[in-house]
């Protein structure tokens, strides 16, 4: 046996030893094994969550900020109301997100995936569906969207419907806003501060718990969203406050926290708040370190196969930060000094394997220089 073969055996054994194993794999496999052969069971597995979804969304829609009068039920067309699609939109749409898409994997559809043409701009297609977070069903039904074509490369987002309904909208990709709507809603429009009205679309799909509205306008604008029925009567409205303008990129005072694939993530202290910049994009928590002592950022808009990069800041006595999954596995990184007198240390990256899903129930642990545990909180409490 030659040396290369020995080394290869050792290297393969070492590499194999760090593959994570899901303790719930057997149940998932049995469910999957039954799925294709038993149409009766397949039907059950889809209709049960959809029924639950309908109940949840019915409550959420009642509690929404959307208010208004009554109208006649027009029935639910698959895509009602004016479509913003331009003549330049290609006739052949991109394929809907498949099994390899990260969002499909994290919140597998329990409804049809409906595609909406041109909502994100000419030549774009937005795909929407409802599903449950695979790793945390307790988060409730999620509304997910992916936009492809034009300037988009299949990014998107998922969010719990109840929260979105309370806010009257879903933070979508780019400037696309969306939210749940009563079944009788057939059209939606956003009125901007200038008086300009932007029309959107109302869509529904197989097993959708309700209708869905989508409209695209500049996110800095505060807009009045109005839903109408087939007769043109207003049935609900809400006001969505515009988002503050993007942060100007500071020219000095930055601390490079880490580099990943050629892009530096740099932290700045601006007006008492820690702000991170990844290339030309800046992100900041909503409060200063004294109010939010531990902050984590992790980008959710990623393709399957792309690792998840986590970073943030921590109090001055924290020497190491770790993320602990529900199966006990920990991923950690050390901290580096922040700005003198700021009481802040910076940390990152914690690189999570592509198939690991970080959720609100993932624990974040902090340790001091002696290795003693300082704090342990679920991520849902410390999201930046």
């Amino acid at each position, binding site marked *: 046996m030659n040396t290369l073969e020995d080394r*290869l055996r050792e290297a393969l054994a070492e590499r194999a030893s760090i593959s994570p194993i899901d303790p719930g794999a057997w149940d998932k496999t049995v469910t999957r094994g039954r799925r294709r052969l038993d149409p009766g069971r397949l039907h059950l597995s889809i209709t049960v969550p959809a029924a639950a979804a309908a109940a949840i969304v019915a409550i959420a829609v009642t509690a929404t900020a959307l208010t208004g009068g009554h109208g006649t039920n027009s029935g639910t067309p698959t895509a009602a109301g004016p479509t913003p699609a331009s003549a330049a939109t290609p006739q052949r749409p991109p394929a809907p997100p498949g099994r390899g898409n990260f969002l499909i994997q994290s919140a597998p559809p329990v409804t049809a995936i409906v595609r909406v043409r041109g909502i994100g701009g000419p030549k774009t297609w937005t795909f929407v569906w409802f599903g449950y977070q695979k790793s945390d069903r307790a988060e409730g039904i999620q509304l997910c969207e992916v936009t492809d074509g034009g300037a988009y490369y299949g990014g998107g987002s998922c969010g719990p419907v109840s929260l979105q309904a309370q806010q009257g909208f879903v933070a979508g990709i780019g400037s696309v806003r969306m939210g749940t709507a009563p079944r009788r809603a057939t059209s939606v429009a956003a009125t901007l501060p200038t008086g300009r009205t932007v029309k959107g679309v109302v869509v529904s799909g197989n097993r959708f718990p309700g209708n869905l509205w989508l409209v695209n306008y500049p996110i800095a604008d505060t807009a009045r969203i109005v839903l109408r029925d087939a007769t043109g009567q207003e049935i609900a409205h809400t006001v969505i406050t515009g988002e503050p303008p993007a942060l100007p990129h500071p020219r000095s005072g930055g601390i490079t926290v880490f580099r990943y694939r050629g892009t530096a993530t740099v932290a700045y202290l601006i007006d008492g708040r820690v702000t991170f910049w990844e290339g030309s994009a800046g992100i900041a928590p909503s409060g200063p370190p004294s109010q939010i002592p531990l902050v984590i950022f992790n980008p959710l808009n990623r393709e399957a*196969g792309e690792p998840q990069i986590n970073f943030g800041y921590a109090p001055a006595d924290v020497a190491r930060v770790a993320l602990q999954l529900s199966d006990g596995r920990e991923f950690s990184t050390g901290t580096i000094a922040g700005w003198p007198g700021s009481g802040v240390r910076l940390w990152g990256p914690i690189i999570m394997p592509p198939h690991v899903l970080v959720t609100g129930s993932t624990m974040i642990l902090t340790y001091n220089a002696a290795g003693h545990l300082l704090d342990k909180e679920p991520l849902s409490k410390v999201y930046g």
Partner: protein
Amino acid sequence: MTTDLRPTGTVSGLFRERYPEMVRLADLLGADDPEDIAQEAFARLIRNEHTLRNPDAAIGYVRACVCNLTRSRHRHLRVVRLRTPAAYHEVSSEHLVMLREDHRELIAALDTLPPRRREAIVLRYWLDLSEREIAEAMGVSAGTVKAHVSRGMDALEQALRGKL
């Protein structure tokens, strides 16, 4: 006609004993979601168990499924890459940093091999399978396995020599 869909003791026992191995095999072959591949392979066994004449052939069947499914994922991801130029797909990079330096080089070189050569080498040197077993898993002849292993090892040697 109704099919009995309950997995038999044979499958559950096999799963208990060999599931981690199949996850690791998919991982070593470069699957972006090794658990998904391994689960699908066992799910296919559950669906097709009644067609297996020899229960001892079950693990070979699952192994072949893992190889085929991983290859299919690679093909799919190549298409995704063409469609999403902005996205990164260096699946195993985060695992590489956890390895010993010399092992890291070797695994990185293995990652660059064509899928069939990589499969043959992993099955040969990690699972210690015979040429016949590798041929069954890959769906090729024993002679083809020999060629893949030999060319793969040559390529690894050359890659490592280039690092010196």
